[in-house]
């Protein structure tokens, strides 16, 4: 009993610094945001429970931002995972110049965001390079950044910047797939695709989950690029939740900002929980 008590004390003492860190840097700020989301203003701070959330879900700007963010994130995660996995498989295959391609795919990581934005601007501005080329071909110019194309231009920019890192993660995961399992399957007559889908993909599931989460979180940070590209009020297809939050912060509307932040974190938490659940189901077969 005495030893157990001492163990508890020691454990608590070791736990205290990190608990304080979590408390001060995560729980307290989150609690403050929660608090602001259930009071009615910076001056009186009357408790209004869910009124701010009701207002939020009626706000057209929030709904537009949420829709755009959902579209962008879904596409970004899907394309980000699939394309980086394909790239990893290509780089790991017996293609010539593999080293060169690996460097090429990784190089965007070293380019500052502002340079990427500048190049995109030069290319896709109404008087930019792409429209000049179209003009040479006798085609009319398109206002790329103020039409539906803008979302896919930003998507291309996002993928170009992030695929290299994801690819490295997949290459590492591919190297961990046991060769003996693959060789046994090959001896048993399994083809390339069967080996990939039945064996490699199952071993890759933790990496897919990780890349998916990283891509999802990065997709929420696309605001920086869009803000630099189109400013505070971009074309409606590019207006994301971060624009909404940034602008409501500037308007001192902490209630709207906090409610949106809570909703966003709840959605992300739900998505992550779903991904973890899917991954655990998928991995059971491998471990089993």
């Amino acid at each position, binding site marked *: 009993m005495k030893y157990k008590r001492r163990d*508890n004390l020691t454990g608590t003492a070791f736990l205290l610094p990190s608990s304080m860190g979590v408390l001060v840097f995560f729980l*307290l700020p989150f609690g403050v945001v929660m*608090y602001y989301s259930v009071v009615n*203003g910076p*001056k009186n701070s009357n408790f209004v429970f869910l009124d701010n959330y009701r207002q939020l879900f009626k706000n057209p700007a929030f709904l537009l931002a949420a829709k755009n963010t959902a579209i962008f994130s879904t596409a970004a995660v899907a394309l980000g995972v699939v394309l980086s996995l394909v790239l990893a498989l290509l780089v790991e295959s017996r293609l010539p110049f593999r080293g060169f391609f690996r460097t090429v795919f990784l190089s965007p990581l070293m380019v500052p965001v502002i340079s990427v934005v500048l190049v995109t601007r030069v290319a896709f501005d109404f008087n930019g390079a792409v429209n000049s080329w179209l003009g040479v071909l006798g085609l009319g*110019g398109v206002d790329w950044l103020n039409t539906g194309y803008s979302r896919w231009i930003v998507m291309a920019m996002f993928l170009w910047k992030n695929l290299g890192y994801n690819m490295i993660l997949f290459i590492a995961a591919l190297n961990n797939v046991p060769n003996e399992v693959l060789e046994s399957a090959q001896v048993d007559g399994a083809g390339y695709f069967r080996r990939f889908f039945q064996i490699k993909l199952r071993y890759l599931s933790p990496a897919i989950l990780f890349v998916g989460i990283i891509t999802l979180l990065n997709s929420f940070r696309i605001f920086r690029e869009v803000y630099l590209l189109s400013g505070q*009020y971009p074309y*409606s297809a590019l207006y994301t939740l971060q624009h909404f939050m940034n602008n409501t912060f500037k308007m*001192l509307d*902490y209630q709207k900002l906090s409610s949106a932040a809570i909703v966003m974190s709840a959605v992300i938490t739900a998505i992550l929980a779903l991904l973890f659940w899917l991954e655990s189901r998928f991995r059971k077969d491998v471990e089993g």
Partner: protein
Amino acid sequence: MKKLFCLAMVVLVLVSLCSCGQGKSNDMGYYIYDVAREESLDADFLDSSRYGDSLYILGKQKSGCVLISLSLKDKSVAKTVDLSKDYEHLAAVEGYLWISEKSSVDKLDLNGAVLDSVSASGNVVDLACDGDGRLYAATKKETAVFSAAGEILSTLPNAEGYETGNLVALGGGGVASYASRLRAEVPEVNRLEGDKTEPLPGAYNPGQATYEGDDKYDYYYAKYTPLGNTVEAGVQICGYDLATLAETPLFDTAGLPFQGEIMAVYAQGGSYFMAVGGYDGKTTLLKFDKTEHTKKILTVGRMESNLSVTRTIADFNAATREYYAVSKNYFGQDDLAETHLNLDIAAGEQPDVMSVMLTTYDIYADKGLLVNMYPLLDKDPDISREDILPSVLRSLEWSGGQLYQMCPYFALSTCCEHESVVGDVDSWNLEDLYAICQQYPEMTLYMNQWGSRLINFLIGDLFSYFADIPNNQYRFNSPEFIEFLEFLKEMSDRAREFQPEMNDYTEGRVLLTPLNFSTMDDYKAFVQSESFNEIRVTGFPSQTGTGCHITAPVRIAIFAGTGNEEAAWQFIKAALSNERQMSVTDFLPVTVSAMESVMEQARVSSPATTVTKYVDPEGAAAGTNLETRTYSVPEMVGLTDDQVELFYDILERSDSVYQDAIESPYITIIADECDALFAGDKSAAETAALIQSKLEIYFAERQ
């Protein structure tokens, strides 16, 4: 144990949450110090130094230099000794004084007899002694360190290009050397101690006068104010601790019946002494004793650096003993000024009063953060609504009738046209504008203005025609707005091809002339121009208003919930005081009495005169700089009754504050999108669709 730990964490979270949004706690302020002793010394102040309880002042009389010795401890008669040379600087040590004349530094006994002499490498700019009795004699390029016996110990050179301005003996030992480079904003400040030199971070704020320290503070300083380091400016004296980089406000000179530059500050017991260099060739020594009363701090947040507001702060401080107004400057923080203010509001640290330029209070008023000044105005026995120009109040009002802002001065902003073109009308709308421009195919809207500038001129008055903000209805993709854009495009193209000539306006080739009457001289120049009889002041084309506005460059508001609302209102009253209003020179005053006075003066003719102005950034003698300008001001005939009536008519028609693109982001959104239209890259319909899309988001965020 686990339960206890969890409970402690939960309590911590709850306590933190409960402290959110509690608002601002009042600043403690500081004790009031009254002048308890005043000594007038018959000498112009040159320098001073203190050792122990004795203060030595180097002064200049008509007959020559004098050394005045007096005790800080008790009130004794000051002893004055004539000196044989024209000394400039002084440093006191136990039993003797170091005193300099050009490159020579003499050691004098306390009766003024020369005991010894040392030489510096050049003209000495300041002297100081450290706690170990070493003498520091600074020339512009270096500081020579001498022992108490006068032997040179070391020479401490300045960094390349830096010139010493002054030395300050530090309370904690050593001497601070302030050296600056030509036109460099921040000087290099070093602590000199024997042969050691080390940078002294945090020891300098631009413009602050610094005084030697003691065992309480490393040094004292007078907090900077653009009105100068004078008693009448009501400056705050602070102590500075170099270890913690903390400043402590100690007392202030607001409201004192003395005038002159604050030359030195010394602490003695619980009191402070201040040497004031008067403008009459005399020096006044003031002793400040602590009272039982305290002063609160009234914070004036500033997004402007306007001298009138600075003077209002000084007026307020001079008029009240209970509060001392201090500036909290947001204006030096570029485009982050509003963000910093918002963060202060979120932290409950908002200023009591806010003064802004080129920005609006919209978001703060919408959030209920501002005090409606009408109830304060209505219950005030000294001032009422009738004392302020009605059109100014009307223009500053919110749509709900609240007065959240006040301007200390204003200008009139309107527009005039040729009567033969617009006819005998006092206002007009968009349809009239279209009809006139169709009638005169050669006509342009403004002289030499095209592209998005046309948007900036016109949209402020037409915005409400296309946007019904309270009902969330926006018609920027409507045929009317598309027609408006097409019209602007055509007028922009006309303006680009336009070849200006001298008589364009009188021939009806330029339609609109914006008018801005900042002073009555502006108005006089307008009504006394040759073409005045042929023109009409119609205001800007407007669908819902009169097209006449007031321009309020500086607007002051009171933040709610600071606990200092009454004092904040007194601050607003200081801005509206007769003295302050009568001193408005570059704009028009807002009180009725001051306006009447300005109008009376405008009725009087002023003769032709010649004015010479020079800009002299390098300190050259007056009139020798190349930037000197001399120009003639023609005779200004006094205003006639009709002209006065027209002025009041324009003033009466002014019903809103002129909004430009800087203050109104939605104008910027429209103007930005129109760039492509004016460049011919997009059609009016495409531009209108984009504007509608962006403005819908802009206003939806505000719902």
